[in-house]
């Protein structure tokens, strides 16, 4: 039988394995990293307070539910501005300046397009691409059907295609 997460070691391992994805989830919604980290820590405090009642297998679902609820209680940002660390610019020595410039422009347009996605699509899309989660896992975390996740992914990709057609 599964016990709760009251044992320090168990609780810590849940934190180490889930905290980043929970934080990212809120970040995709708000674009506010400080807020995302605060809420994540609050959600873990709640988990700790309820450690005897939450089974280990249910801990992640509990965290998503709680952090989402905490987020909804906060004042919402009107515009989401996501900041990424860009790994590009490596192995670019052999490429022409024009090419690099074009790539940069493309990337900027792409980042703006991601921010402009409806929240539902943005979350699913980034959980898949940044957190490298499978559709099935996203569906479990968000309490959706796999089909619903796939639809959101499709719509996100459809919307992002417009970066190829400069206005």
């Amino acid at each position: 039988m599964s016990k709760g997460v009251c044992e320090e070691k168990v609780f810590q391992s849940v934190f180490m394995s889930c905290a980043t994805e929970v934080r990212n989830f809120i970040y995709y919604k708000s674009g506010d990293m400080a807020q995302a980290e605060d809420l994540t820590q609050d959600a873990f405090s709640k988990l700790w307070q309820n450690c005897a009642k939450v089974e280990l297998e249910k801990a992640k679902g509990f965290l998503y539910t709680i952090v989402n609820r905490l987020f909804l209680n906060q004042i919402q940002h009107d515009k989401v501005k996501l900041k990424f660390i860009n790994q590009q610019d490596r192995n670019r020595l052999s490429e022409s300046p024009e090419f690099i410039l074009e790539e940069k422009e493309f990337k900027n347009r792409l980042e703006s397009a991601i921010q402009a996605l409806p929240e539902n699509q943005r979350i699913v899309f980034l959980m898949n691409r940044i957190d490298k989660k499978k559709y099935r896992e996203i569906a479990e975390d968000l309490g959706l059907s796999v089909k619903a996740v796939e639809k959101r992914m499709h719509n996100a990709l459809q919307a992002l295609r417009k970066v190829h057609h400069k206005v």
Partner: protein
Amino acid sequence: MDQETLFARWLSGELEPAERQELQDSGTSAELEQIIQHVDELELMPYNLEQAYQSHVLTRTPQKLQAGKSRRLWLVAAAASVAILIGSIFLLQVNTADIVKAPYADQVNHSFEDGTITKLNAGSTISYAAGSWNENRELSLEGEAYFDVRPGASFRVNTPHGHVQVLGTSFNVKSRDNHLEVECYSGKVEVEHGGQKVILAKGRAVSIVDGQFSGLEQITNEAPYWTTGVSRFRSEPLRDVFSEMERQFDVQISTADLDRHFSGAFSHRDLNQALDQVCKPMKLQYELTETNQVIISK
């Protein structure tokens, strides 16, 4: 097939051959591929899990321990660093306690057999069993000392107010009056009072005043200030500030107004300068007699 999920299935490689062919022919796959290739180069700021966990652990510990009565304080800190020493072999050693003392107006460096270094602040004493040091790295501290601990077995500092257990690091322990302060400069340190434990990571400090843990504080210094010729205080009673000045300059200071708190620093170079640094901001007068007595008045 299912057009509503077409691109999602393209991305996860679940398309029927006919669908895949169609996307390829229309040039759509190429467009999508370019998008994915760029998106996959994006990353988010890493989450500092260690630090988040520790500040989290601290905030939730109070409820853990209300059960035990914590009247008096006290501390434990410890640290370890990074070299492996081949210990010499001692066949028979008499177990005597070694005492190292830093008198007033002096700071004393001391190294242990295993390479661990300690620096004692003025008016501080450590004692330990030199003969069995390699088997049992444990010492008692009265006053304040900085430790740079060699990695190895556990390392423990006992004070009248609590114990510090080293997890591998350099750290400062200040245990004066009813006040314990621990700063961690590298590695990790565990501070324990009653049943409550706090693990300090690098760049963190915690204090226990009257049996209560304060919140974690961020520090930017890489060694205690007193080792660089300055004593620094964060909102500490004037009483403690002048006690520290007595230790640094080996003088006697008498004063009336001791309950206010002082935040700031004084230099160890010159007594007059040090008195100015504390008295001016606190609007106090001082008088220095020939016999090294200092009288503070409003």
